[in-house]
């Protein structure tokens, strides 16, 4: 099971192992990571699972589609590496991935 390192806006980290094939959002919700909400359950409708993929890992993550990209344009504090974590599916290549989280999802 790949390792995900969640990093809160103030630098606190939490390590979580999750099954390959689950989304980063689901891994966060299942492990009580409160910086990620995932209100719509992962259907790319709410943008409350906004995260920052660590630049070193961006190449291992499939790119955002146009709906996700439009939503990301309107989140609080967007960055180049912003993603909706419900749209990022965990693969074996992502073992050790670092996921930053914004201060707020609203």
């Amino acid at each position, binding site marked *: 099971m790949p390792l995900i390192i969640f990093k809160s806006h103030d630098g606190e980290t939490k390590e979580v192992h999750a099954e390959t094939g689950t989304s980063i959002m689901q891994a966060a919700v299942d492990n009580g990571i409160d910086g990620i909400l995932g*209100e719509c*359950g992962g*259907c790319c409708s709410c943008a409350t699972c906004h995260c920052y993929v660590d630049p070193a890992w961006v190449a291992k993550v499939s790119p955002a589609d146009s709906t996700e990209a439009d*939503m990301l344009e309107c989140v609080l504090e967007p960055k180049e590496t912003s993603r909706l974590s419900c749209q990022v599916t965990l693969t074996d290549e992502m073992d050790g991935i670092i996921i930053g989280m914004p201060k707020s999802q609203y």
Partner: protein
Amino acid sequence: MSEHCIIIGASHAAAQLASSLRQEGWEGKISIVGDEPYMPYHRPPLSKAFFVGEKTEDELLIRAANFYEKNNIDLLLGCRVSRIDRDAKKIILQDDAEIAYTKLAITTGARVRKIPFKGSELAGVFYMRDLNDVKQTHKFTGKGKSAVIIGGGYIGLETAASLRKIGMSVTVIEAMSRVLQRVTAPEVSAFYTRVHTEEGVDIRTDAGVDAITGDQHVDGVRLSDGTTIPADLVIIGVGVIPNIEIAEAAGLTIDNGIAVDEHARTNDHDILAAGDCTNHYNPIYQRKLRLESVQNATDQAKIAAKTICGKLEVYNALPWFWSDQYDLKLQIAGLSQGFDQVIIRGDSESSRSFAAFYLCEGRLIAVDAINRPKEFMTTKRALSTGQTADPIKLADDSIDIKDAFTN
């Protein structure tokens, strides 16, 4: 006695409430009692991704199966509560077992409204609220078969889209003069009627149902005008009613739902309630609301958990909703009821991407955004933070939507 929070009901609000209680530092026992045999699961995919087989049962779970054990949350599933004894502070289960609580949360949700159509007991007639219902429909679905859907609301239309996806012929029967009449503007109803028609659905409005026909198995639906539409499967989606009976029997105040204050407390402050079953005051719209939505279940449950942990916060979230049909992603921010003006941004008559903004006395109150995530996101934030919108800019698709709002 040690602290014990019992949560009655095991759906969206319950899962969030239990999880939030731990996050807020609740150290006592937590028990979730639910009458379905399943761990809390996402209901929206029942008419969509789960219905067409794109999501498995495991993928419906709101929290992973081991979440509850890891967080020391007891699940009593397939277990019905028969009553609440407020004086003794305990719940009594159907088998007469008693469990004492120090705090009780009622998250019993809503159940489908059942209309006793003649023939509604026939095999092949379903409602779409519970996992059990939807699992059974699979025996009656299949390419080339026919379905009739009674009710042109969101559930009916989502199910119609799913059934078309698996190659069934679909007719939607709506009693009112347009689909989604209760919740959208005529322009949005016309849009959904057009798209469903383009996708091959036969939509009949102003149509009453006389009877569901068949011997043991459904074979059709007879309309009030005498025409019969053949059907291998009938799905009824005509709304829900809140599950308030257990609260009412316990003497809690009921007012179109279980009445709760801004901290999710009933008139008994050791008993809270959250989600579809509640009626609460919304400060943004300055009126009492009973909402049927995941957002409300989740957000109100968070407030309830804080209250239980002694952190009083006011519930003032903006309602929002979504509905996925075909390639259409509808996102709704705010409540459109009471609108006196609609502004359409984009082309609702021939494209599949536009936004309908709802105004009341010149003030923006809601948006239906179809394949327009930016319009949804900006409006959701504007309504939450009290920004005002310029109606002329809202209507002008050449202007960036962000520029239509001012603080």
